[in-house]
């Protein structure tokens, strides 16, 4: 009994330590975003000055807008493309070919962003696409599609084929089977894919860094370049806002999940 107790305490301690180490830099950054001293050495007094600066910085607000537009657009387009891709892979009957396609898909997910970014830069330069909004959007779509495929495909594979037979049996043609049965069935996978694509696009730095240009910038690239230029605590303020935004997203996601689980559960009980 005692040994179980002790082990439990050790594991707790370990977890606490890990989380402290992971969150300490973020906490440090947040605390100094309120520092009236203007540097990250020595906390002099509380101020919201940096937040005011961030909110008055129209260039920054435009960049935030850019980032969101790129994220939404690329997530939307890649969700459509990825879903079609997943359907296509699902339709492949030969096992070896299916696995080959999946492997090609997965390689794109695990390959380093730097390589993807550099190769896109070369591609865009060769075919003469001007670096900027379009090039960033295209590359974000490109690296999001495999993620969507990966999120949607399992949902398709767990689908019973008898359901498709049933739809046809009830008079549905191929298009109706797709729109009334397959797509509604895949919906959770499609949503998951969309949100994954959204987050990947929002926090992408490496690929964007390569393919952006002509004054077009996204938040991660902007924060990076500002941090390079010199220390301004407005960066801290901006990062803090971003951090709070993601925390809000996570909490929101948690509650949606819990609600769905509760709905499903109450459905089971009836």
């Amino acid at each position, binding site marked *: 009994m005692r040994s179980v107790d002790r082990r439990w305490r050790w594991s707790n301690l370990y977890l606490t330590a890990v989380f402290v180490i992971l969150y300490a830099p973020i906490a440090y950054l947040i605390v100094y975003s309120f520092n009236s001293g203007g540097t990250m050495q020595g906390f002099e007094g509380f101020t919201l000055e940096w937040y005011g600066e961030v909110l008055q910085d129209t260039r920054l607000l435009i960049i935030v807008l850019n980032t969101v537009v790129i994220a939404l657009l690329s997530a939307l387009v890649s969700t459509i493309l990825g879903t079609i891709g997943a359907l296509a892979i699902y339709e492949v009957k030969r096992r070896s070919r299916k696995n080959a396609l999946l492997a090609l898909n997965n390689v794109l997910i695990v390959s380093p962003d730097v390589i993807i970014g550099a190769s896109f830069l070369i591609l865009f330069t060769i075919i003469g696409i001007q670096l900027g909004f379009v090039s960033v959007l295209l590359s974000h779509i490109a690296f999001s599609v495999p993620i969507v495929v990966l999120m949607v495909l399992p949902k398709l594979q767990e689908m019973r084929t008898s359901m498709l037979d049933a739809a046809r*049996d009830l008079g549905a043609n191929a298009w109706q089977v797709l729109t009334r049965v397959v797509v509604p069935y895949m919906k959770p996978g499609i949503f998951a894919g969309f949100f994954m694509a959204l987050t990947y696009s929002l926090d992408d730095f490496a690929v964007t860094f390569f393919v952006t240009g002509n004054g077009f910038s996204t938040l991660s690239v902007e924060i990076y370049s500002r941090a390079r230029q010199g220390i301004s605590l407005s960066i801290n303020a901006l990062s803090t806002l971003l951090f709070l935004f993601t925390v809000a997203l996570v909490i929101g996601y948690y509650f949606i999940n819990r609600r769905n689980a509760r709905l499903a559960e109450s459905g089971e009980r*009836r």
Partner: protein
Amino acid sequence: MADDVIIRFDRVTKRYEDGVTVLDEVSFDIERGKFYTLLGPSGCGKTTILRLIAGFMEPTEGNIYINGKLVNRVPANKRQVNTVFQDYALFPHLNVYENVAFGLRIKKLDRLSIDTKVKEALRFVNLEGYENRDIAGMSGGQRQRVAIARAIVNEPEVLLLDEPLSALDLKLRTEMQYELRELQRRLGITFVFVTHDQEEALAMSDEIFVLNKGRIQQSGTPTDIYDEPINRFVADFIGESNIIPGRMIRDYLVEFAGKPFECVDGGFREGEPVEIVIRPEDLEITEPESGKLRIRVESQLFRGVHYEIKGRDESGNTWLVHSTRKAEVDEHIGLTFGPEAIHVMRFGETEEEFDRRLETYGEGSHG
């Protein structure tokens, strides 16, 4: 083609790409308004027949007619046939109402007729008030009913049922057997029911097709098939039976277990080797001296309704007896049975040959 034939298979063969033949020149007629059962072990081709009727696959050779029209190339969504699937295949993203309404919405019926028809179908399967339920929250029996409602709401001429009871527990299964039979009578449409469960087939059908290895072994009413199986496979698959090698001394007299017995079968050559079938419930236990056969009891199991006794006669044949009388292991008991309890099977006889032979010796129709 007779008017009451709704489905005709004409020498239909189905071969897969890897060369496996699942159906081998199968021909049969299915008549309007009857309850048919395709019965056989797994892999016998019964589900293949169902899928061919539904239109999920095309025959490799031969022709399929529905209502006199060739339908070999007609896709599933264009056939007046609906299916109840083994796993029910309900749409989990739709509620009960929308599942049932699916076919009607595809047909673009107006809102009001959809509503009347769906409610009526749900009433038919005793699911009134379940319209807004989620599929995930329903029991196996309820899902089964939704699947049936979803199929019959389209008013098909033929309802195909692919082992729909196999996922239910025993008690519910027996209940559903009554309900399905009753449903078929009320709707008056043709049911084609696929199962590997012989009791189910015997209990529900007007007509049974016994299948094995891609061929129909025997077709007929449940009593025909039970009482007069044409070969060892059918005798063995339908119910339990004692299958004993024998020899026809002449018509109506058969020899087995070293003794001659009167029987009711004819049309054989004299001295022809045969197999005889006696159902275990047709054997009656008597005193050893007064029995037609004497066996030594080797094992006994209590089955609730009866005792299942296994024993061996003097010639070494094993006998299975169902009796309400108890026996003792190692005890000698006598067995008695009437001439009509014996059914004689000719080796390698086809169904047509069997029917022709029946006519020659004037027992009349089957049974």
